[in-house]
């Protein structure tokens, strides 16, 4: 059904005017004009261009379609599907030998983001609970290592489980009262928790040294061999990423993982089938917090200096973006998302100012045209297709 041409023209003119007026005060008359021209052009192309409903369908199915490589991979035999990640791991490990310290450093940061994104993926992707203050768990881990190491010379390897466990405890404590809430309240409560954590770290001078942060954290050492070069961290993080990815993958296909999916898709139905949803939510929350804590310990051991400003809301958003961009619930997707987003700023040095605005716009557009992310999990893809 098409609306009358006059009505359409009127509407196009109205929206063009809206965009001009809206941007006029902030951008000034000239730049606002460009916005209006762009708004007009886009509408004109969409409405008067030769875009038939069939074209549109086609476009959506391409943009929103299954990643070809992913579906190709899924149709390969099992040994092949195992071999691919192993091969990628080997290639990355080998290329580490030839990297400059700077590239290694950036790659290590990317690896830490991968750890965080995989952790957040458990709760957001698998269990379907939106957590907005995820970086707080990482802060708990990082500060645990920083404090215990500088005061009691706790070793990195012991700090890994301790930091993770402490973060998990926080997750449990936060989750117990709040997981009964509906999804969007949970998002806000976790956001509030993230803020409380940051504010507390910034103010509890006697323990966290307040805004100055903690200096002089010692690097990890392996049987007396200290990690001093960017290369060492690179391999440490690579091993941890490989392990986390492996466990995430196993988790996804386990009984637990399937129960999460059931809960995510229809909580009431799952519950009536005997799925203990509250317990499952708590478990997802705690596991996810554990991963965040571990990533925090690694972060602190690499940075050797931590301060509250490294754990602000934007970091949480960043990690969430990685999960969403890559594909919620898809382990390869999340890894890809984290790697892409951590390398992007290095590539777009000249356009650094525009990085965040592009992120924001990408999140909005992605939700409309490709909510399943770049590399969706096969299961998730089907769901989104049905919802459309």
């Amino acid at each position, binding site marked *: 059904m098409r609306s009358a041409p006059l009505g359409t023209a009127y509407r196009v003119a109205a929206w063009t005017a809206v965009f001009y007026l809206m941007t006029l005060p902030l951008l000034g008359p000239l730049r606002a004009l460009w916005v209006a021209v762009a708004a007009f052009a886009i509408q004109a192309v969409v409405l008067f261009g030769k875009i038939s409903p069939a074209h549109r369908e086609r476009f959506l199915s391409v943009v929103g379609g299954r990643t070809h490589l992913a579906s190709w991979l899924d149709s390969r035999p099992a040994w092949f599907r195992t071999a691919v990640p192993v091969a990628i791991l080997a290639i990355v490990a080998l290329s580490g030998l030839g990297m400059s310290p700077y590239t290694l450093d950036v790659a290590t940061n990317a690896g830490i983001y991968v750890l965080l994104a995989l952790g957040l993926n458990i709760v957001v992707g698998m269990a379907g609970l939106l957590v907005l203050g995820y970086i707080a768990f990482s802060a708990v881990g990082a500060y645990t290592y920083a404090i215990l190491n500088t005061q009691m010379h706790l070793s990195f390897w012991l700090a890994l489980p301790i930091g993770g466990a402490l973060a998990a405890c926080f997750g449990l404590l936060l989750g117990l009262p709040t997981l009964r809430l509906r999804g969007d*309240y949970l998002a806000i409560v976790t956001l509030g928790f993230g803020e409380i954590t940051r504010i507390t770290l910034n103010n509890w001078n006697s323990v966290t040294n307040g805004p100055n942060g903690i200096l002089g954290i010692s690097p990890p050492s392996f049987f007396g061999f200290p990690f001093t070069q960017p290369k060492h961290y690179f391999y440490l993080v690579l091993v941890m990423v490989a392990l986390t990815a492996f466990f995430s993958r196993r988790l996804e296909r386990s009984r637990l993982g399937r129960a999460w999916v059931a809960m995510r898709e229809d909580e009431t139905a799952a519950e009536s089938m005997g799925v203990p949803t509250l317990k499952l939510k708590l478990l997802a929350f705690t596991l996810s917090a554990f991963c965040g804590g571990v990533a925090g310990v690694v972060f602190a051991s690499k940075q050797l200096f931590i301060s509250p400003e490294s754990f602000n809301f934007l970091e949480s958003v960043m990690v969430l973006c990685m999960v969403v961009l890559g594909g919620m619930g898809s382990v390869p997707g999340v890894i890809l998302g984290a790697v892409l987003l951590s390398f992007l700023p290095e590539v777009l040095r000249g356009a650094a100012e525009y990085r965040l605005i592009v992120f924001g716009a990408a999140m909005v557009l992605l939700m409309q045209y490709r909510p399943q992310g770049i590399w969706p999990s096969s299961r998730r893809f089907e769901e989104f297709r049905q919802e459309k």
Partner: protein
Amino acid sequence: MIPGGALLQQIVNGLTVGAVYALIALGYTMVYGIIELINFAHGEIYMIGAYVGTISAGVFLAAGLPVWASLVLAIATAAALTSLYGLSAERLAYRPLRKAGRLAPLISALGLSIFFQQYVFLAQGAKDKVFPAAITSGGFVLGSVRVAYIQVAIILVAAALMVSLQAFVGKTRMGRAMRCTAQDPVMASLVGVPVNRVIALTFVIGSALAAVAGVLVVMYYGKVNYLAGYAAGLKAFTAAVLGGIGNIPGAMLGGLFLGVVESLAAGYIGGEYKDVVAFVILVLVLIVRPQGLLGVRVPDKI
């Protein structure tokens, strides 16, 4: 050590901040009431309102208009132009996702919030924008409490807007359509309510109110910057939840309550912990009384 007058002064301080929270909270509460979406970008709309007000006040003053006329016109301009942001946000970022479950619109809202924030940063720079007309800090002294006229103005304007909004929703045809859509959009469309237009109108009204709050704040404090939306939005949302989300008098009560609590916390516990107090109250309210102070418990839709 602390004189008794200080307590009253703290309450006056808190009410001013709270009235602003309440005005922003109205937008959250209306949108949530009607489409069950936490409009994360709403805080940014408030910030944009402050910018538009500041810039247009500058234009009106430069055109030689008297100060009071410039201020009134600036508020009107900000409300009108900023509501367009709400309108287009709804059309471009939320309407396509109305049937897409809960997570997608929430992430879209988050993205939009970052987009707006960065858009203002790129357009206007990182420096604080200073309001062109210095509103003289004239006021009166009541006992030991000092009240600026502009504080009174903020509280009065907020109250007036809330009362008229309540009347609009409760008494007019459009208001009835809004309540109808909030209860059941499908049913509403069946009985002939133009659901899309009603939802768009909700966004427009909410944005206009946030813009008014933005201009009042920038007049009172004298400056705004592109990051101002985040904290204010978060607080206003807290206020909306406190009062009972979806409930207009609740938003007002929640805003004033939060403002006063924060003010007392900053005054008597210490400035560094006031935000912690605010969030702890939010978590407690959600746990003990998820429907908020004035809300009614609605079972989850199945």
